[in-house]
């Protein structure tokens, strides 16, 4: 087993888990809404990107359009549907599942079963007899940038403080003059935009078809649950853990074992750590501070 292979595969897997999960994690962690249409939001981002690129936009611009389209869609859906479903966790699951159904089939009717795909830019990194797609490897720093950006947004800005106040205690936040409705809307739009970004980033390297969302959903769910309640730390930690496990098991035993190992890890983590990996970090920190 080549060490660089393993490293690149890890980078690839880590980025995939983090990017698949981050939009779902923001919406679930901050609003308590499980978006079963998350995969379809990613699909919309990928369609926005691919269609813009096909229309002649340079790839970075096309990606920005993909993100924007998804964010606007998130805004519209939040104002019309999602905002009625706060505090109704399970209803929101059914509703977003239905939305996913509508989005998938809607795109099929509008654009057909497939659209011309964009090719992957940036060539490859060659080392010895091996090579790896540069673009896929670069998704790791991009994933880290996304996480860093969210960290700054939620901890260092006025908006972030208000948003967190809203989540912890909406009534008090409202009494302090925070427009909590707007905070929820903004959070949902950010979550949608992140899903759109994931779609935009993977548009040049995955197959963009109406049903593509389902390939993100499982990883996203598993990562969010394994991560636990703290959105950013949790997503980062589960990206690290699941990425490593996938890379190692895939390399040792094959792709099937990589998938199974990841799912089994999720089951064990949920069982052993009721608050996910962040719960573990919390406990350890409390213990250290307690001494």
């Amino acid at each position: 087993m080549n060490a660089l292979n393993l490293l690149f595969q890890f980078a690839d897997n880590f980025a995939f888990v983090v990017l698949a999960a981050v939009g779902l994690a923001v919406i679930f962690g901050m609003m308590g809404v499980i978006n079963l249409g998350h995969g379809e939001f990613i699909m919309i981002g990928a369609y926005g990107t691919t269609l813009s690129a096909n229309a002649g936009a340079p790839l970075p611009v096309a990606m920005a359009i993909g993100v924007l389209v998804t964010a606007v869609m998130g805004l519209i859906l939040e104002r019309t549907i999602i905002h009625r479903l706060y505090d109704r966790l399970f209803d929101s699951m059914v509703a977003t599942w239905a939305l996913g159904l509508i989005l998938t089939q809607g795109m099929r009717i509008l654009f057909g079963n497939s659209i011309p795909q964009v090719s992957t830019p940036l060539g490859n990194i060659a080392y010895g007899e091996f090579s790896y797609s540069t673009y896929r490897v670069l998704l790791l720093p991009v994933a880290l940038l996304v996480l860093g950006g969210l960290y700054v947004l939620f901890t260092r800005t006025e908006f972030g403080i208000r948003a967190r106040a809203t989540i912890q205690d909406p009534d008090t936040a409202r009494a302090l003059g925070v427009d909590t409705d707007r905070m929820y809307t903004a959070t949902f739009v950010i979550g949608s935009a992140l899903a759109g970004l994931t779609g935009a980033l993977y548009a040049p390297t995955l197959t963009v078809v109406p049903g593509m969302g389902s390939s993100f959903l499982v990883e996203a769910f598993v990562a969010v649950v394994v991560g636990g309640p703290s959105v950013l730390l949790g997503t980062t930690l589960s990206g690290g853990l699941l990425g490593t496990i996938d890379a190692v098991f895939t390399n040792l035993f094959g792709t099937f074992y990589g998938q199974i190992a990841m799912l089994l890890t999720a089951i064990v983590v949920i069982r052993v750590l009721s608050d996910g990996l962040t719960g573990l970090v919390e406990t350890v920190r409390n213990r250290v501070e307690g001494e």
Partner: protein
Amino acid sequence: MSGKRSGLSRRSFLATGGAIGGAALAGCLTGGGSGEETVKLGIIEDRSGNFALNGTPKYNASMLAIEELNEEGGILGNEIETFAPDPQSDNQRYQQLTRQAINEENVDALWAGYSSATRETIRPIIDQNEQLYFYTTQYEGGVCDSYTFCMGATARQQLGSVLPYMVENFGTDIYTIAADYNFGQLSADWVRVLADENDANVIGEEFIPLSVTDFGSTINNIQDADPDFVMALLVGANHTSFWNQRTSAGLDVPMGTSTVMAQGYQHKRLDPPAMANVYGGFNYMEEIPTDRNQEFVSRYYEKFPDAAYINEEAVNNYFSIKMYARAAEAVGSTNQADIIEELEKGMDVSAPEGDISLQGPVHHMTHNMRVFRCDEDHTITVEDEQQISEQFLSETVGCNLRENEETTQYVPADYYEEADATQE
């Protein structure tokens, strides 16, 4: 137009549903499967869900064939009706719709399903009802069934055309990557059998779950093994990601296939050069340069100007519907047992791919197999062409449906040492 037709039958269904039970029962008894006054064909093809990409051209081509037949006066002087629901790529729904087609719509013949999983799901229902059924996808082979006619090329035919070509041109070390399900496993078995017959070696083999979209480790594994060529038997939308990823990773080993381009037209959908240096063994691609084919292609796009591609399966639907019509005319009725008997005598068929023939005793086709090459610009050229008959059932197994009733699927592992993966 199909919407209108099925809308009609749906209304009549609702009407019967609303009527008193006795009347509906009487309707069931009189509307038998061999009614002379109408001809009704069941066309159950996916137009939504995972297989919509492959199913839609099949649906289109069926409608084209039926329209052409109707313009010529239909079958036995009757206009052809259709029952054409959308099974939404859901096998359980296929079961329901197949039962509806047989028991309620009383279809005279049935075309249904893309994947072998679908075929195996509905075949018990077909056999139980002794329903004439055409399965048109290129598939793993081995189905010896008194009521099922397999119109697609088998893995042995498809791989048998491309694999010897690859060995001759690139070398003897083969690395197989295949979708991890029944079709992929059996196709990989055939790669081993054919490698042995052509004095080549399979130096590596990897089965990839249908849900996988990330091929980083697979690409590394191929580079590690350093084969002369790869046999890529990948299936479905997720696996299509492989081509972009192998190109961007700089993996430039030539690849042979029986499963991409002719089914999911990846060379049209992906940006060049994703499919560069891919060689496929198929009975049909719409790029076949013959006049007969080009004329067919223009008829198709005239009827469906927005259609994306004509895939291998679409053409199999097209010629088999025409073939069915000829058989019905020959026996002078739509009696299913008579038509099966007629078809079992064998038949020469003029198809868009060329002149081919039905091998009656095994319910399979001798196809005009070509090796197609996709270049840097995604231009398709024909590299090789030969008639290849179905051999596994007719020669190895010795299946003869003219003499014995059967509903079996045979697998190569029972007949070839090389195909038995458990031996290694």
